């Protein structure tokens, strides 16, 4: 027996490793919370090094980008001169619109609503080492009052939600993640559905609509709906790019281009609390409902 095991030790070891890892895969695909908290603990340990590297990388990226921009500056200069003519003609029209806008703002009392939103600013210090899942680590954690389930936003729109925290860092699942499910609605037609990450590599979102024939069109703005566990209603998600039928034609799905540029998220805001019933903080450019 001993001789048999010794003779076949390599295949046996490999089979054992494969079996153990397969069981681990199967179990962790069902358990999410505990696995993520372990990852977050590691994130906290390495957060000083991550912050330093991210800072250095950012500075180097800016330097390289500036050199690259020199080649396009001349072409842009010509285009800008042409645009200047156009903008001058639009100036009069804009001044009228600005007046009307200020009146509407007053009516909506968005300024008043803003004071009730409690936000914490945080910096993205690292991303997930797995390309297939879209999470980032921010430099604020439970010490700053952040806990799992809180919405994370940017002035341009929704970024994602906190899925786990440590005292000094938190892991945020981006809207691009295949597991992110956000209750959403089309602003124009009020058609409701769920927005989630389309594919790991894609920077677009899928809007799965509930209705059989929703009146949804490319160019429509999509915001978070009130049927939402984590996100306040009315936060801008993105714009509809394409509408198509599902495989059997029962429902429709739309491709949504997120309003946030996920390649350039450096600073984000975590929504610690917001007043019930209000929808849109004034930092958002999205339309009111």
């Amino acid at each position, binding site marked *: 027996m001993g001789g048999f095991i010794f003779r076949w030790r*390599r295949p046996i*070891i*490999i089979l054992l*490793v*494969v079996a153990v*890892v*397969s*069981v*681990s*895969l*199967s*179990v*962790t*695909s069902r358990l*999410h919370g505990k*696995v*993520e*908290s*372990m*990852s*977050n603990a*590691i*994130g906290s340990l*390495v957060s000083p*090094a*991550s*912050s*330093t*590297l*991210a800072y*250095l*990388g*950012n500075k*180097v*990226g800016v330097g390289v980008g500036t050199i690259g921009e020199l080649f396009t500056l001349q072409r842009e200069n010509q285009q800008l001169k042409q645009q200047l003519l156009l903008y001058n003609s639009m100036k009069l029209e804009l001044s009228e619109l600005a007046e009307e806008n200020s009146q509407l703002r007053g009516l909506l009392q968005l300024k008043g609503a803003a004071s009730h939103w409690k936000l914490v600013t945080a910096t993205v*210090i*690292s*991303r*997930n*080492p*797995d*390309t*297939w*899942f*879209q*999470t980032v*680590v921010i430099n604020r954690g439970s010490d700053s009052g952040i806990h799992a389930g809180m919405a994370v936003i940017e002035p341009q729109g929704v970024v994602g939600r906190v899925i*786990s925290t440590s005292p000094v860092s938190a*892991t945020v699942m981006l809207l*691009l993640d*295949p597991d992110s499910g956000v209750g959403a609605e089309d602003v124009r037609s009020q058609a409701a559905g769920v927005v989630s990450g*389309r*594919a*790991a*590599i*894609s*920077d677009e979102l899928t809007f799965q609509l509930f209705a059989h024939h929703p009146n949804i069109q490319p160019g429509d703005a999509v915001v978070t709906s009130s049927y939402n566990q984590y996100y306040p209603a009315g936060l801008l998600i993105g714009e509809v790019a394409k509408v198509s039928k599902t495989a059997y034609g029962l429902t429709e799905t739309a491709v949504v281009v997120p309003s946030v540029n*996920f*390649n350039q998220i450096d600073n984000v805001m975590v929504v610690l609390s917001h007043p019930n019933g209000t929808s849109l903080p004034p930092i958002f450019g999205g339309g009111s409902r």
Partner: protein
Amino acid sequence: MWQFRVVTWVVLYLLGLLVQTALLPQIFPIGYVPDLVLPLTVIIALYETPRRGLLAGLIGGLMQDVWAGRLWGLNALTFALLGFAIAHLESRIVRDNVFVPGLLAGLAQLLVLPFQWVILRMVGLALPWSQFMKPLPVWLLFTMLVTPAIGGILGFRPRHEVDRPYSRYVR
């Protein structure tokens, strides 16, 4: 010799993952950030026995899985098998410091991606094949260039040369 110690591998993988999560996302767009565990596993396994190659890949993959915090075993399984295969091949091929590591890493990258696609489908994450394979050219180029570079920086040598420093001059 430090290159054969497990602690060295852990430190290398830790540094690799730090660069991969904090520095590379500043250069590569989202979804295209390349993997540094793969080149490290190839370099380590090239100078190891199959069993230790498997162990190195298992350690690197597991560290990546724990760091990612989603599916424990996806990368551990992938890189353990990769480490074993590379170390197994090592005794059968002519080894140099540039072309062989680069070609092996490129080949590994070609195989790892479809393998992970299958595993993810098995655990219920069905990602479209075309989207999944989209970053392959970028990763292939990166891996084939970075692997020899890492090998050159680390200066790993075969065990017999380390044990007998002048063996390369003996005929």
